[in-house]
């Protein structure tokens, strides 16, 4: 499952094996990750260290649980105390898709703020 999730997430972020390896090594000191190793991860020929899974999750903006196939929610949930408002009819209860939307919104908002700094 890890290999499949890594490949899907990498492609969703428009990374090639090479560009992901480069981004990884630029971000994490002493990374030393090659495109060949990434290919082995994706094809389940080699298992990554847990620290590498964590770093890849951070780089790709998803949770480690998602990469490892433990959940289908790719983004960490929005904090319970985060204020927001939604357009449209108010639902009795928020469903998983609502929570994913809120998490995506919070993440995009944070990224835009980072880019402006």
């Amino acid at each position, binding site marked *: 499952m890890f290999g499949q999730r890594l490949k899907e997430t990498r492609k969703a972020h428009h990374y090639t094996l090479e560009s992901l390896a480069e981004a990884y090594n630029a971000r994490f000191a002493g990374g030393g990750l090659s495109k060949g190793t990434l290919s082995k991860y994706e094809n389940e020929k080699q298992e990554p260290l847990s620290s590498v899974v964590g770093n890849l999750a951070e780089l790709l903006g998803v949770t480690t649980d998602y990469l490892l196939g433990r959940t289908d929610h790719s983004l960490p*949930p*929005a904090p*319970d*105390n*985060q*204020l*927001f*408002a*939604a*357009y*449209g009819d*108010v*639902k*009795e*209860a*928020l*469903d998983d*898709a*609502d*929570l*994913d*939307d*809120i998490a*995506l*919104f*919070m993440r*995009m*908002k944070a990224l*835009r703020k980072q880019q402006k700094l």
Partner: protein
Amino acid sequence: MDTAALRACYARLEAMGVDVFTCPMQNHKALCSPDGALALNPAAIESGAEEQAILLHEEGHFATGAFYTVQSPYTIRQKQENIANRYIYKRYFPPQRLQSAMAAGLREPWQLAEYFDLPEAMIREMLDYYQAQGLLELCPEEEL
């Protein structure tokens, strides 16, 4: 569609320091937060009138500070949405403005919706609210 009205909505949000961006959401046409972020889902917005309604509604949230969390109960979320809506009704569509339009012959909600470039549902909610508050009087034959 009155694009000048739409541009004015965006300009007011910009003046309030709101960062408006697109976001591919599954269930929402728009989400906003009090730190000045507004995400729109263009694929789900059906018309210029709806876009204007969304921008006005979210302006109401920013102006009134009416927000909630994922843990907020339904009643609180509904109350905060009502606060945002009513702020916008009174600020941009006061009863006198609606009454004038109706006096000019625009008696059906769809006519008012076209005149104000808003979704008919928003006009109906506005009329219901003003009538419940006793702020808008309609003759029996004008009941909408």
